[in-house]
């Protein structure tokens, strides 16, 4: 059982001994907190980016280019059938410009897949950043 002196001692301990720079101390703690959060976000974002790059590499190495090349060959009649029956110049012009983006060569296929993979990497990065925010 605490006697009166012990109770007084507890009260004395509870009183802060000095209060010279409470604001500056709080600023320092908040500064460290902010730095920690920024580092965490950067690490999560970096991990997402690395994961995305690995995903891109995997996609490019999965021989999908060759698959798309053969698919591109099959798309030629589609292009032709799309353009042929249309009499309206504006519509046919639009279709021609759209079909121009369809892969017709191995290089074009790789570009499409690279763009798709980079998009996936970007989405992965975005997702990890959002998870970091949560």
């Amino acid at each position, binding site marked *: 059982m605490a006697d009166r002196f012990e109770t007084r*001692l507890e009260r004395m301990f509870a009183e802060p001994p000095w209060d010279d720079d409470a604001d500056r101390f709080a600023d320092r703690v908040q500064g460290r907190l902010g730095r920690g959060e920024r580092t965490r976000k950067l690490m999560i974002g970096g991990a997402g980016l690395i994961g995305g790059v690995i995903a891109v590499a995997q996609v490019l190495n999965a021989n999908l280019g060759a698959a798309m090349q053969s698919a591109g060959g099959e798309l030629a009649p589609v292009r032709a059938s799309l353009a042929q029956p249309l009499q309206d110049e504006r519509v046919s012009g639009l279709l021609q410009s759209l079909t121009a983006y369809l892969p017709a060569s191995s290089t074009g296929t790789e570009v499409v897949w690279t763009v798709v993979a980079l998009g996936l990497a970007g989405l992965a990065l975005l997702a990890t950043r959002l998870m970091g925010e949560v």
Partner: protein
Amino acid sequence: MSTSGDRAALAGLHDVELAARAAAGGRAAFGELVRRHGSGVRGLLRRMGADHALADDIAQDAFLVAYERVAEFRGEGAYAGWVKRIAARLYLKRKAREAKAALGREPAEPEESSGHGEALAVGRMDLDEALKALTPAEQLCVSLCYGAGLSHSEAAAALETPLGTVKSHVKRGLDKLRSRLVPEAAAGRSVGG
């Protein structure tokens, strides 16, 4: 950034409300808690034997840990006491690490303070001055039990020291503090038994 109006509004809130806001991600509320209790936590660490820089450093760590774990604070006790316990344990861990690193080196002799007994006996005493009369072990045990609010058993576990040793450090420390802070009472005790 919080405005001075926000700060004034936060200053009127109870610790439990501030902790709840901090748990919901309120950095300004957490900042108010640090402003409110930073000095107390640093003061405790200094009374436990840490120098100014170390006390500042560990107090910052303690508040960062408290921020991470703020959801665990249910408001059963005082927020200040909760952070002080975290800080005290961090300080002990740091000391244990330093002690391990210092193994093999010559152990430092505890400073016996005999010279300023007379000075302390005269006039109004201050706790910080009175604590200087204690050995580091006594100072640590008394600060843990009366400053951080640990029981003797908790202090013994935190210090990895036998309970009896902690109790005797606390008793000797209390006797010394009593003789310096309330010399008349101490004299009465020694006369009375």
